[in-house]
């Protein structure tokens, strides 16, 4: 992951870091300045929040009435087969719309960590394997998955048809009665769920204040950013090259990589990750090339048309956003890392033997010392607002 060039300002950090080949255990370097190239990379992580963008594949995206309906449905356990599990059971607002568990647990234990839903709108691929190319199809998936909510089109449709208040909300949102066809009704309900999720945007953070201060040349405001976070940021955009994958305002390129996390879901059972995701996507009736896309021009389907299935996709998982990170522990696709420190240490001590032999050559062990690890963690923590007090009973 560490490339040939080492910007001048990172040398300050590298002086105390095995990144630059120096000894470990030294005290942290003085607060680094940033080179022009690093400044460009930092500025590319904003501004935040992004302007809302309507999803053309969803005719109720951005519509106030659909957002209200979606919110109600998101918290409604009647949508599940047992009537006991709502979307919000696993996507809890107090936990960054995740569940705080290593692996999700709906009607059964999942192989994967429940991703937080903040900033889920406007993405290209959804889920750890990107098996869906739109948020309404991704919203339908857990409803139908036997291990999550385990329901069916008939139950989804009936939940709204048989409740006068929901029925009225549906009519206001869509301008029609609930379709008589159960599948069409369920897809519309998923579109309302998507409309609400699109409004879930993580708040501005200390990093955003720092980034904007740099953008306007306000050194006084920039100086308020903690020194440790600044050192971590210098590693992130410098020799650590973390922004190669964690780029842009979301701190994710929205694509898929093998980062050396084992993909055995259980002894003898493998999670194929992106490889299976692409196969499911192509076979899905609910993808953007299918009949339920409300955009006749298929203007957002370019990725679905052109995505390539390669052997190397096996064991690749989506690059998660780093925003709201302190709310969504544990980490990685299988929830195998409890803390941000564990994640940083993973990249520091990366076992290259676990990477695909025929895969890309981006990742190298960063060889961070204690101060580098502390600094990177301090930086990552500034991508979230400080967490509220824990919710009792969970």
């Amino acid at each position, binding site marked *: 992951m560490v*490339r040939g060039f080492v910007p001048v300002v990172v040398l300050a950090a590298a002086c105390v870091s095995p990144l630059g080949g120096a000894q470990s255990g030294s005290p942290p370097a003085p607060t680094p300045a940033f080179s022009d190239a690093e400044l*460009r*990379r930092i500025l*590319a992580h904003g501004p935040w929040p992004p302007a809302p963008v309507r999803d053309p594949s969803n005719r109720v995206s951005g519509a106030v009435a659909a957002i209200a309906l979606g919110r109600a449905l998101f918290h409604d356990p009647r949508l599940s087969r047992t009537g006991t599990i709502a979307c919000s059971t696993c996507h809890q607002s107090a936990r960054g719309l995740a569940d705080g568990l290593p692996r999700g647990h709906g009607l059964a234990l999942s192989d994967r960590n429940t991703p937080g839903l903040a900033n889920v709108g406007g993405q290209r691929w959804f889920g750890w394997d990107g098996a869906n190319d739109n948020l309404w199809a991704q919203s339908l998936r857990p409803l139908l998955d036997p291990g999550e909510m385990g329901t069916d089109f008939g139950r989804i449709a009936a939940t709204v048809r048989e409740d006068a208040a929901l029925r009225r909300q549906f009519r206001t949102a869509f301008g029609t009665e609930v379709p008589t066809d159960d599948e069409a009704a369920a897809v519309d309900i998923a579109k309302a769920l998507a409309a609400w999720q699109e409004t879930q945007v993580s708040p501005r953070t200390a990093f955003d204040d720092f980034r904007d201060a740099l953008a306007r040349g306000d050194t006084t405001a920039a100086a308020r950013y903690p020194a440790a976070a600044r050192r971590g940021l210098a590693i992130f955009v410098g020799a650590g090259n973390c*922004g*190669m*994958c964690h*780029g*842009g305002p979301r701190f994710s*390129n*929205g*694509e*898929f990589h093998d980062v050396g996390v084992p993909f055995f879901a259980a002894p003898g059972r493998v999670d194929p990750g992106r490889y299976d995701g692409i196969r499911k996507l192509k076979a899905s009736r609910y993808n953007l090339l299918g009949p339920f896309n409300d955009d006749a021009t298929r203007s957002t389907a*370019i*990725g679905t*048309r*052109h*995505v*390539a299935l*390669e052997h*190397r996709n096996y064991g690749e998982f989506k690059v998660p956003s780093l925003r709201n990170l302190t709310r969504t522990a544990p980490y990685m696709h299988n929830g195998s890392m409890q803390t941000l420190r564990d994640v940083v240490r993973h990249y520091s001590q990366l076992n290259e033997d676990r990477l695909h032999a025929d*895969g*890309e*050559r*981006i990742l190298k062990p960063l060889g961070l010392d204690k101060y580098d690890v502390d600094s990177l963690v301090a930086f990552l923590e500034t991508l979230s607002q400080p967490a509220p007090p824990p919710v009792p009973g969970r």
Partner: protein
Amino acid sequence: MNAVRGAFGAMAWCAAGACAAQACGEGLPGAIHALESSRYAIAFVTLPDPVPVGRHFVVDFAVCPRGDAKPPQSVRVDASMPAHRHGMNYRPSVTSPRPGAYRGEGLLFHMPGRWDLTFDLVSAGATERLTGTLHIQ
């Protein structure tokens, strides 16, 4: 496959109007990139320009046979990131709205850095590859 790359001098990677590919691609909008081999000239533009990281983009290009070379029977576009030993996660499609003019769609650079953009020109069973380099920020 006969491959020519800018680095070896068999192909020129030159600014618009500054090389023999000047006339090739006339009418393409924006800043034209030009590639040459002994048999072909290619002029291309990207939409948008510059290419952003993580967003699909289009390559509009013209292929102009030189000397007694015949127009290619088929054309492919692809890209790779040599330093990281990976290509794109997408397989671009190429359409030809009129003879000699092409549009490549479905390209996406998911990382910043150096990308090699390749044009494979297939003619009489032989493939000639022209490669240009884009530095993406």
